[in-house]
């Protein structure tokens, strides 16, 4: 077990790494190379990272198949968007850009809480089932959420009092301050990481491995399953909020279909179920790739599905498996020589 000094060193190294990445981001943004198109991709990567890591909590660490993750994203997105519109109409926190950030944070938190609530409502009945049935019931809930939103008057067109059902929501205040979003993403991933490296992570992995044995070592399966599912839904809500306030300012329920849920499932599976690192890498690569390969868009899913089957045949746990990148370990290997690295 690490002692206090090692832990402090580890934390400092990780924080330093995050700062370095941040400065790279600042440089890139300030350099003038970045068009709004590229900015859009960066934002897309951020919320994809949050979606994929949160889904990995349920699929990789808890070992359950959840096919309705986009539904929670939708709840977060619409909650945040509608609250933001209401606040803007009432001129609350609209004066300066800084106020705008605070408004966004409040709306995002509301979205997260709402999504978490839905996660709880869906999780309690759904997690009584296993395997195939759980997959289908989460799919069902995702679709029900989508259909409900589609038919809500306040969620369409101009929204709220002037809303019309069945129309894309427009006029959503935009928040695409990449710096703020970067730290939100970092915070989300950090929270999920601490969750996994704790009694909670061990408990859900035990449930994943053998849920009869886990109850026979004294773990309350239902509690941990529902807790994880709810937390996962909450972060999907955060991602949804970021999505809702991205450059375009519109939301359509088509953005949250079953197909979207499958996109994220694919990212989790390819990245590696049980590896946060894998999720992050997969999220970035599979979000940026389609944009870069616009030309071959129609073949994208075709290639993905074939790759997916191949991965399932040859490496069922996903490309990264359960591997986690550790900056500390990496640096030791680079600079500390062999002996030191082996001790890590």
């Amino acid at each position, binding site marked *: 077990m690490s002692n206090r000094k090692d832990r402090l060193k580890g934390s400092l190294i990780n924080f330093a790494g995050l700062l370095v990445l941040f400065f790279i981001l600042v440089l890139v943004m300030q350099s003038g190379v970045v068009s709004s198109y590229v900015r859009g991709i960066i934002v897309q990567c951020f919320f994809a990272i949050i979606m994929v890591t949160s889904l990995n909590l349920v*699929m990789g660490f808890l*070992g359950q*198949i959840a096919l309705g993750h986009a539904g929670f994203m939708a709840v977060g997105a619409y909650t945040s968007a509608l609250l933001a519109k209401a606040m803007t109409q009432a001129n609350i926190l609209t004066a300066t850009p800084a106020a705008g950030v605070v408004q966004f944070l409040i709306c995002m938190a509301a979205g997260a809480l709402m999504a978490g609530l839905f996660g709880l409502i869906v999780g309690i*009945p759904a997690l*009584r*089932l296993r*395997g*195939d*049935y759980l*997959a*289908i*019931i989460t*799919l*069902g*809930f995702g*679709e*029900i959420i989508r*259909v*409900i939103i*589609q*038919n809500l008057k306040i969620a369409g067109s101009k929204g709220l009092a002037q809303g019309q059902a*069945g129309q894309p929501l427009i006029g959503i205040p935009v928040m695409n301050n990449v710096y703020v979003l970067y730290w939100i993403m970092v915070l989300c991933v950090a929270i999920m990481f601490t969750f996994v490296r704790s009694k909670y992570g061990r408990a859900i992995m035990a449930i994943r491995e053998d849920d*009869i044995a886990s109850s026979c070592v004294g773990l309350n399966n239902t509690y941990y399953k529902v807790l994880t599912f709810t937390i996962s839904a909450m972060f999907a809500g955060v991602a949804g909020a970021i999505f809702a306030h991205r450059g375009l300012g519109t939301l359509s329920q088509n953005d949250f279909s079953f197909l979207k849920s*499958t996109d994220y*499932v*694919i990212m989790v*599976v390819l990245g590696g*179920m049980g590896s946060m690192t894998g999720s992050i890498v997969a999220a970035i690569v599979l979000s940026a790739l389609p944009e870069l390969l616009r030309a071959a868009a*129609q*073949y994208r*899913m*075709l290639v*993905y*599905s*074939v790759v*997916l*089957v191949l991965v*399932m*045949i040859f490496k*069922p746990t996903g490309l990264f498996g359960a591997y986690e990148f550790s900056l500390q370990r990496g640096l030791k290997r680079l600079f500390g020589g062999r002996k030191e690295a082996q001790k890590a």
Partner: protein
Amino acid sequence: MEVFFSQLINGLRVGSVYALIALGYTMVYGIIRLINFAHGDFIMVGGYTLFFTVPLMTAAGMPPWLAVILAIAVCAAVGVGVEKLAYSPVRKKGTKMSTLITAIAMSLFLENLAQALFGANPKQVKTIFNLPNIGNVSGNTILTIVLCVAVMLALQVFVQRTNMGKCMRAVSEDKEAAILMGVNVNRTISITFAIGSGLAAFAALMFVAQYSQVTNTMGSMLGLKAFIAAVLGGIGSIPGAMIGGLVIGMAESLSKAYMGALTGGVITSAFSDAIVFLILIVVLLVKPSGILGKNAGEKV
């Protein structure tokens, strides 16, 4: 009252198509415990095959519905192919989760392959049946319902009375024991897939006869609702698939017609999809084994 009756008949027709599809789902699930997400897309394969072969039949001067024979062959081939190339290798090495993911992947593959080959626009298929109406009910509808019942009966007889049927039941009960008893499990699984996918071709025929259109996404919603039907009736049970299909069909039909009136406009016909999903959720929570299914617990 007339409206109600016609909606009911409508529901029976839609339900019959669901039942045909559900039969395929239930057979495959019974034997390898896999929800074949791609099953709905086998229907799409059948649909596109019909799109190409119906004109061929007409040109050759033969009744258009004979094209279904080709469709059955193609669907069966695709079904067995998917099983051998994707499901079987994954089943050997993987977990429950990886087989389910593979099924989802195959579904995506088929849908996108069709899109790449045929484009995203719907294709029109010429009328297949020219049947007279009986009373207010179209000939198509009656044929669909009759066909569905006939297929179910035939299947039930096949599974209960023939040797291959016995093999299927043996493998679905206890694969290891079946191997020990000399059953060629791989062949049994292949034949099950072939039959299941062939049924999808029938469903495609009846669907296309009614709606005249094929697109690459026609299978997914159909397949999903048919799966719900199979679960409702008791997955693994052939009569159950039939019952489940009809119930779901009628629920959808009636909710489309009456939901608006019943709830004063709050819940409209657009919710009929959600209603079907709600039925699924209720079934899974109240009686997961479905109407006719049996509970198979895990041995501790």
